[in-house]
């Protein structure tokens, strides 16, 4: 329920300030820190918030996703902070390919330890300096964007450890909580929501990093508003 409330607030903030997603995320976190967002909502409040959430969300999502803008690198960064915690896009040494038998997946010439994967991959995301949107909506996503999102998703998921409660998704509740946190624009009333949540939870049981990375690489995550 806690996360449903967060989702509601996120969507509400996005809805009222569509051009300042990062600020809205920070605002949400600020309010969380100040205790202005309750973590013990009643069932009634939760239902109400979910209903409002779905209404708001459904007003944003069209049938084919057209018109939904994808995240630029700045929004992507703040969304990951909200979704899974801060510093999750930092590159660790074992992620970098060091030799033929290396288990890493990042090229050593491009990625350095403690660099931010979003910054490095940002060339194919949306430039935060210019806000130059190569991809304007989910219908015209670029191949480069999808490819770079895969890399970012791999890094973030690799940083997910059992110690991080925000990375937990192996029960249906934790799976839904993560979806609510990470995919705030998706209404829980979406016809596929329950089935996707179940499959997400099943995937988390088998390979949580793969499940998290796959979710982060999806259209559902990379749209904003």
């Amino acid at each position: 329920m806690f996360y449903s409330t967060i989702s509601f607030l996120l969507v509400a903030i996005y809805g009222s300030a569509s051009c300042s997603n990062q600020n809205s995320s920070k605002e949400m976190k600020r309010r969380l820190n100040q205790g202005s967002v309750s973590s013990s909502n009643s069932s009634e409040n939760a239902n109400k918030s979910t209903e409002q959430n779905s209404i708001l969300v459904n007003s944003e999502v069209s049938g084919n996703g057209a018109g939904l803008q994808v995240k630029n690198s700045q929004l992507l960064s703040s969304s990951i902070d909200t979704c899974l915690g801060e510093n999750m896009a930092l590159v660790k040494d074992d992620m970098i390919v060091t030799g033929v038998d290396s288990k890493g997946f990042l090229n050593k010439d491009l990625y350095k330890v403690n660099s931010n994967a979003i910054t490095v991959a940002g060339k194919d995301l949306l430039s935060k300096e210019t806000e130059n949107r190569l991809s304007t909506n989910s219908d015209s996503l670029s191949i480069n964007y999808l490819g770079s999102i895969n890399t970012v998703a791999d890094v973030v998921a690799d940083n997910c450890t059992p110690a991080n409660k925000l990375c937990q998704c192996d029960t249906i509740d934790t799976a839904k909580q993560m979806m609510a946190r990470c995919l705030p624009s998706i209404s829980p009333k979406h016809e596929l929501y329950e089935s996707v949540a179940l499959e997400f939870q099943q995937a988390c049981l088998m390979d949580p990093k793969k499940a998290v990375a796959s979710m982060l690489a999806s259209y559902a995550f990379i749209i904003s508003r």
Partner: protein
Amino acid sequence: MDRRKFLHQSLFTGFAGAFALDRLGGVPLFSSLTDPRILSRLAATDAWYNLAMVSQSVGHFLRLEHSMAQAQSSQDTWTLVTIKVVNHVHTPLVFKLGKRDGNIVTGDNPSIKSKSGEAGAHMELKGADAISDIPRFSNLRMNKWFADILATGKADTDILNNAGLQLSPFPDESKVAIQAALSLSQTMSNNHSLKAFKLATDRSELALHLGETGVIKSPLGIAAFNMGGNYDKAEGSNPTNVILGNVGEQPIFNGRPVKDFVSIVEQSVKAKHVDLQTDPQKNLTLKFDRLIQKDPKLRMELLGNQQKLLDSLVSLNAAGQLESKFQNINVQTACNQANTGKGASLEFLAQAKFVQNAVKIPGKPFRNFQLFLNINDLDGSSLDSIIIDTQNKPEDVIKSLTYIEGMRQLALSLNMLASTIAEGHNLIVVVMSEGGRGAALNDNDISFGFVMAPGGAGNLKDALYANLEEIDKRDSSVVKDPGGTNVTWSGDDLRTEGNLKSSNSSTRLGDLQRGVIEFLEEKTGTTGSRKGLGEFVKLRRSA
């Protein structure tokens, strides 16, 4: 700023920035690869580094594939394979020169048997001191030992024949032509330096030149290999294989072991965690996508292409595995390699196998290969020697093959590549060395070379470029010491830049390479890439 840095820097400038840099002379990004203007420029860069770029984004592979399809649709789908042999070559180990009377050739020169140390008896038995009894190869003056390996694809050592190599009888001349060039002088006078492979003093190597001029359009650039650690560079600046540009011995990029290419290819097509299953019913990312789009075509396209490339590229694994194989040591056959304590490795043949498999990848992402054959710097030692002189300390980083093993593997590699040509690939192979070895197996200047390409009408035919009169004498200087004797070729194969018969008394390695350029210009319909380069060898065509 070198190309590598430039490419790296341009990565962070984005799409528009890449074009800006392109105008400034920088190397473009994969993100701009779909622009046809870019392809020819990328063709001259390091394939390994380009793969490293691709590995950062599966999306880059889609763009790459688009560019490959674009290049494939044009007629210019020729592939270049240059084979650089160091340290020098010894003509009598491959060719039998001297007065010919039927299948008997007599010349006043030391026998291969006498120069092969413990492998002498074996080399004599296998015909290294006799001319080939295969008419086609005896016309090229090959000795029986080398020609038999080339013709049959069967080495004179047992283990090698069971190494999983794709070897077969050498194709007919109508399918594959092979031309031999003797008495090639150094383009630049030096002893064991890679600059000897350049087209001219102020020009780059052939592979780079053909990439830069757009004659060979390789979407991934040049796949340049290295083997045997260091070579005994003596007067050279670079201890391993590098691709040289216009300026001196300044390297443009490094050759690498096959395993490095296989590793980066694998890295390029495999994500770490994100679900890349192509089955829509199983792919988790696709299921999340459908919360937004019922039919995410772009995702499906990405997954489909990813799998297609993965299927193709994993075939290169076989080459990588081959590289680490060693034969059993056998001093009687000179199957030996310096500083390994083992028999000869299959590193060089792994390069040939990489070529065989890579040219079969749909779209031909690799069309420009440089193979590197590292054989021992004899400095007067016998042809089976693995003794390392002290030119290049520490000596133990030099893992060169014996001269005999080197030529054995050269014959096998030509057999492998010939079968690839016979399968219908427009492949031209150029074998060259930085110098020749004298009669006393000392360092000297005069080498030989090979050109191999499709045969038949309009393509090449077998040819021997040499002073045919002098090599048919018992006691001519070229017969006595082909590695130290400069003689004028018979005929009019050496031409001026304007295609007139040259009056030059010697033919240089660069002339032969420029002949390859002239042939490829004709085949690809390009012009201008020989301008200012001077003389060339008019490679003989089949009518």
